């Protein structure tokens, strides 16, 4: 072990990740070398006093400006998401309406007819809802739960098959 090697290994020596035997070799060298003892002390002290360096503080004026920016952008961002979700919901509402109309006018595709019949026999609320339609007019509104069930038919449609004849 010489001074150059010791200096190279100081980081590991100080952070305690050094293997016992190597640490012993460094200790022996430090014991008999004044320059290395001093180097170790000053290197370690450098590390310690740097902990006390404070990061730059944000000026008050910047802080307020940054805060207003952050709050405004967060709202804008969230509004963007809400708008997107509202559009998607509106789109789905329209699709379900067309689906119900196609059902009443017997324009459903073969697989969708099967799915529709199977579902309304199995699902109480959808069954009741469809019976209540009773061949009459378009319903004023479709309850969300029922809308969800009907939307699932569209997702279950075999690829390439149109849901209904236009």
């Amino acid at each position: 072990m010489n001074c150059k090697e010791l200096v190279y290994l100081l980081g590991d020596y100080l952070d305690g990740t050094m293997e016992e035997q190597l640490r012993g070799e460094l200790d022996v060298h430090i014991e008999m070398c004044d320059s290395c003892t001093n180097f170790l002390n000053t290197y370690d002290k450098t590390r310690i006093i740097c902990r006390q360096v404070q990061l730059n503080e944000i000026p008050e004026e910047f802080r307020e400006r940054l805060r207003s920016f952050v709050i405004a952008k967060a709202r804008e961002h969230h509004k963007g998401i809400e708008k997107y979700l509202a559009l998607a919901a509106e789109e789905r509402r329209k699709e379900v309406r067309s689906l119900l109309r196609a059902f009443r006018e017997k324009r459903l595709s073969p697989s969708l007819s099967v799915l529709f019949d199977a579902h309304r026999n199995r699902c109480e609320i959808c069954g009741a809802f469809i019976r209540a339609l009773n061949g009459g007019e378009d319903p004023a509104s479709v309850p969300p739960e029922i809308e969800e069930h009907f939307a699932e038919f569209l997702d279950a449609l075999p690829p390439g098959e149109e849901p209904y004849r236009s």
Partner: protein
Amino acid sequence: MHAERLFDDNVLLEELRKGSDEAVEVLFQRFHGKIYGLAMSILKNESDAEEAAQDVFLTVFQKAHTFKGNSALYSWIYRICVNACLMRLRGKRRQETVSIEEFMPVFTEDGMHASPVGDWSKEVERKMLDKELGNVIKKFTEDLSEKYRVVFVLSDVEGLSNEETAQILGLTVPAVKSRLHRARLYLREELSRYLREGKVA
């Protein structure tokens, strides 16, 4: 919603995704100081640091849904911050930095110290409360090139572990250790010269 719940990282992110104003406020209060300080230490310019801080918050909002919680929130945000700063640096003229080689210790051919090393560790302890010393150290770190400065600030100033620093910067742990070691050697030498000459060269 109790405000204390927002100190849980995952709850905070969940509330941010829902658009809670309170969560935005907590996020801002918890991180704006660190983000700005870190950005200043990398960019060394107030208006650049302010713009980088804005970028960081925007990215956090946009990517809130991708935070998985397998690393701490602060280290995720530090990574976003470092990236935002490095992007900004890329577009700029390279800053003047010292050549770190000039500050590396010198050895004889057989690996002995080329000149005797003095011990100023006790002396500096007495100056530790001195504001000037703090400013001098800060100036020395600002002279470091960004390659060393970022590692040094995260590990030795912010006190993160080498593993965390490596993760934030996308470096290996040995690379972090080696940069950190060289940064400390540089600072040790700058401090030696400063204490010997009583002024910044």
